[in-house]
């Protein structure tokens, strides 16, 4: 069977970028615990869409309705932007696209983004579509799976993956450490990839791993008191992910008779400093191996499902992959889930 190939990647962020210090100042956070969470995060800046300041000089509280509208508008803007860049880089026109997968967790909407993107992108009415909603930070690879399988089954045609996360539409601000963990970490961003069979690294296979005993470790729950969705991260996450990191990677590599040392490039989700440490020390990866993961975390924070494609874009910009090189993509998120994919340049 023909292998699916990643022809191109494109990314886009919203217009406004904040340093962690600026965010603390903007929200007037003086709690030392919260300040240290922000400042020790190994994140320098994030792109966010924040509400205007209210009478008290702090950003106005947003209703769930406002947050959902922010998600929809922001997702359309940066999602379409990322997709256009990816199409342009692939040298593929919108009319050539036969399949579209959209991935988001930071807002619920019906019809989904895959329907909303058709018109602004000029995609054909016959485009096959799927929306991956609510799967969290790992979902970019869950979205890549159907597009890659569709592309492999339709040689010569092209599919489009768009991961778009408006994490500032999932903001709850209540001066507690729990929300500060979330608010110090996530940023907005969109990334898209054109998948076909003609050029670019081949997608050789996927391997999933769901840690059901940690099903509650990452959640997006409805908060009755606040009338908002609220994201929750368990402090055990880095350890849960670290303890299970080897299993899917070994399964994936052994299917192709490979060892970890045969993998030239690691494209790992920028989940947070502790999660990246856990991956590094459990898989025996050097800091160099996760340099794009840490630099994306530093510059953008955790952009949820889009993060790994930002790292992938930086790897391509660096120009280090050589023909024949193997790469592993690895994303982690709620479930708790580890998703992996093997590429060959």
């Amino acid at each position: 069977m023909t292998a699916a190939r990643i022809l191109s990647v494109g990314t886009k962020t919203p217009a406004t970028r904040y340093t962690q210090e600026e965010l603390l100042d903007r929200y007037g956070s003086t709690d030392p615990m919260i300040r240290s969470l922000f400042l020790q995060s190994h994140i320098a800046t994030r792109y966010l869409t924040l509400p205007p300041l209210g009478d008290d000089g702090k950003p106005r509280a947003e209703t769930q309705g406002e947050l959902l509208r922010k998600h929809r508008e922001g997702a359309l803007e940066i999602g379409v932007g990322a997709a256009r860049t990816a199409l342009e880089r692939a040298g593929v026109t919108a009319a050539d696209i036969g399949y579209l997968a959209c991935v988001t967790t930071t807002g619920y909407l019906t019809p989904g983004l895959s329907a909303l993107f058709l018109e602004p992108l000029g995609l054909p009415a016959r485009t096959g579509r799927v929306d991956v909603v609510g799967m969290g930070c790992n979902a970019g690879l869950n979205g890549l799976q159907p597009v890659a399988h569709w592309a492999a089954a339709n040689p010569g045609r092209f599919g489009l993956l768009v991961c778009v996360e408006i994490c500032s539409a999932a903001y709850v601000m209540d001066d507690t450490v729990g929300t500060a963990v979330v608010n110090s970490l996530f940023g907005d961003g969109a990334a898209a990839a054109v998948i076909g069979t003609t050029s670019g690294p081949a997608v050789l296979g996927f391997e999933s791993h769901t840690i059901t005993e940690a099903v509650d470790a990452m959640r997006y729950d409805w908060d009755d008191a606040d009338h908002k969705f609220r994201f929750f991260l368990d402090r055990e996450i880095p350890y849960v992910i670290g303890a299970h990191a080897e299993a899917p990677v070994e399964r994936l590599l052994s299917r192709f008779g490979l060892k970890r040392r045969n993998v030239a490039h690691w494209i790992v989700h920028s989940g947070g400093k502790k999660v990246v440490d856990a991956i590094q020390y459990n898989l025996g990866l050097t800091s160099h191996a996760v340099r794009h993961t840490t630099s994306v975390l530093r510059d953008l924070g955790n952009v949820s499902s889009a993060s790994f494609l930002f790292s992938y874009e930086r790897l391509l910009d660096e120009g280090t992959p050589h023909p024949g090189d193997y790469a592993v993509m690895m994303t982690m998120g709620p479930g708790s889930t580890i998703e992996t994919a093997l590429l060959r340049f």
Partner: protein
Amino acid sequence: MLAGLETLRYEERAGVAHVTLLRDRVDVRVVRELAKVSEHLEDDAADVRAVVFRGSNGTFCRGIDFKDFDPNGDFDIHGFNLWEKICARIERLPKATVVLLEGDVIGAGVQLALVCDARLALPSARLQLDEVHLGFLPGMATFRLAKYVGLGRAKRLIMRCPTIGAEEARDLGIVDEIVTDADTGIADAIRSFGPIHTVAVELSRRLLNESFGTSFEDAIGHFLAAQHRSIRQTAFLETVKKQKKPRT
């Protein structure tokens, strides 16, 4: 499995792999065979807990053989790149590593010693990093040596290229101990590593190697990730079980 070695002798005895350098200089063939041995140790040698590197005929290693050092035939940077890769690979082997130094230990010989966990010397050992006097650089000894001996001493050893004896090498901390009988010294050194729990050996070595270049804030995160990996291993779980046994 490990057939066709020409420049090395490889033997496994009682859980210890003995790697003997048969040539007195490092050429591209030695580098390739060291890679072959490393691959075997990483993939197929689960019973091996320690690896010993030693020389032959009273010499450990006299440095690089420039007649045949580059994989492409002509002389270029690629041979050095391959050499550094094999040094880093030996430094990360999932085994405790011991090197026995004797006679001439020059250039690449010292570099190889610096990537081993335990460095023993016979009284005959004479160490020298002679590269700078020959107009090139002593590889990543430029990175590793100062961690062992301090910056000032490293400058003396690398820039003034003195030949030092086993005692001075020990006093500087390059050599752990001087042994008079090779086999007894090696056996004692391996015994001193105790049960050799692979994960604890690998991670303690990695954190130590990273210690000079990492901020405390980064290092504490690395440590916690590494410690969490260690305490999930059978070795540590057994330790806890033993301690939890009620006293009778």
